[in-house]
């Protein structure tokens, strides 16, 4: 709807134009206050040289470029694998093997978009030789117009105390939509009444399909399992 259309709906000016104008200027003052507050925050930010992550922006963009097949945009790269305690370590051959396995899973998922619906399919190697079974993936059983949660579920045959999971949801084009906090349970619910609806919730909950990943942290080992999931709607 254009502003002209909206204007037509409100049919101004009206009989209390004098008061309207005065109140309207109050809105303008609030906008000025917002502008001043933003400028204050930006000025404060400009003086901050030690904010967490300041020196890593180029690396982040490079990593994204790698994902997009656009690998020459920013120099220097650093893997995102994190050791317990927040440190970082280089990829081992096992990580590269896992990345290749993930790629295979993604390709399979792309060629058979509904494979996830088979509850008995695809056990994946997990930390310590255990198997993690991706199953169910996304459930959205109600019409998209209603406020429903989207649930991600997986099964980890060797899960134990101290294990941590993190779910990353991506759009069909690979854009990261949401990252869960560290989880101890083998499921994650996202939605208005569940966990952390993102600002773009209305947009992306309507999407027919998502990519999703579950990263598993067990001791010093970290695994990522990835899949593609189609939203099931009744």
């Amino acid at each position, binding site marked *: *709807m*254009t*502003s*002209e*259309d*909206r*204007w*037509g709906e*409100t049919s*101004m000016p009206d009989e209390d134009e004098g008061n*309207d104008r005065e*109140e*309207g*200027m*109050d*809105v*303008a*003052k*609030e*906008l*000025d*206050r*917002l*502008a001043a*507050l*933003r400028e204050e*925050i*930006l000025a*404060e*930010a*400009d003086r*901050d040289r030690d*904010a*967490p*992550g*300041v*020196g*890593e*922006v*180029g690396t*982040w*963009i490079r990593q*994204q470029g790698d994902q997009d097949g*656009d690998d*020459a*945009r*920013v*120099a220097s790269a650093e893997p995102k694998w994190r050791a317990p305690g*927040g440190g970082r370590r280089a990829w081992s051959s096992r990580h590269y093997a896992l990345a290749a396995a993930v790629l295979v899973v993604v390709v399979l998922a792309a060629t058979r978009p509904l494979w996830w619906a088979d509850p008995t399919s695809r056990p994946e190697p997990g930390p310590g030789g255990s198997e993690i079974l991706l199953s169910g993936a996304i459930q959205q059983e109600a019409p998209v117009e209603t406020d429903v949660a989207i649930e991600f579920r997986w099964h980890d045959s060797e899960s134990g105390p101290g294990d941590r999971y993190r779910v990353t949801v991506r759009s069909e084009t690979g*854009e*990261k939509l949401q*990252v869960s*906090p560290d989880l101890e349970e083998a499921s994650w619910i996202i939605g208005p009444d569940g*966990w*952390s*609806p*993102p*600002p773009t919730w209305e947009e992306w909950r309507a999407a027919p399909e998502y990519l999703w990943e579950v990263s598993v942290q067990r001791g010093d080992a970290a695994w990522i399992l990835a899949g593609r999931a189609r939203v099931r709607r009744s």
Partner: protein
Amino acid sequence: MAEPIEPDSSEPDPSEPHEIDPVRSDVSVERRARHAQDFALVRASLDRSDTAAGERLAQRLECVPRILAALNRRGGGMLSNEDLRDLGQDTVIRIWNKRGEFKGLSTLETWSYRFCFLEYLNRVRSHRRQRSREGRLAEGSDFGVDAPDLARLLDLEQLDVTLDELGPPASEVVRLKHFEHLTFNEIGGALDLSPNTAKTHYYRGIDWLRRHYRQPPRSSGDSESRGQEARPR
């Protein structure tokens, strides 16, 4: 569609007191020049062969972690440094992927700020829900008590969210007027409108906002959603 109502251009404009202020004019010219430079940089970064532009843009986007840290200070330090770093990565990538939508109507920092604010707010709400579930946050606790600075910012930022509902060009005119401090002549130039049409859209936008906030709130249950009930006072 209704034709724009052209205001009487002879009418004094109380919101335009600096139209002839040469100092403000210099600032405005400088600001617009920065907008143009930023726009050129972003366009160049879209060219995959221009790696130097990509690197320069990456350097400029270092403002993102800084803005997030500044917001976190207003939020009472609700996020840890590790959380901020993770959020910074997500926000930078989001901005990078959306950079094709940058129109050069503000500086890159101002444009990036809004991404930062929304992402920060989303992450903080996630953390509060988690803490609430774990019993580490009192039920009914809201930003107004825990982080009054953030609550005030949230109230004001709701105005900008509401402008999205208004839509362009009126929303863009209002933003350029208040957030970029441009004159109606400059706004007209930036949006390819006549100054009088820009002025008309401005007053329409302000009036629409005023009417929007005059309506009764839609809900009052969520104590954390103060911004959704914000009222210009």
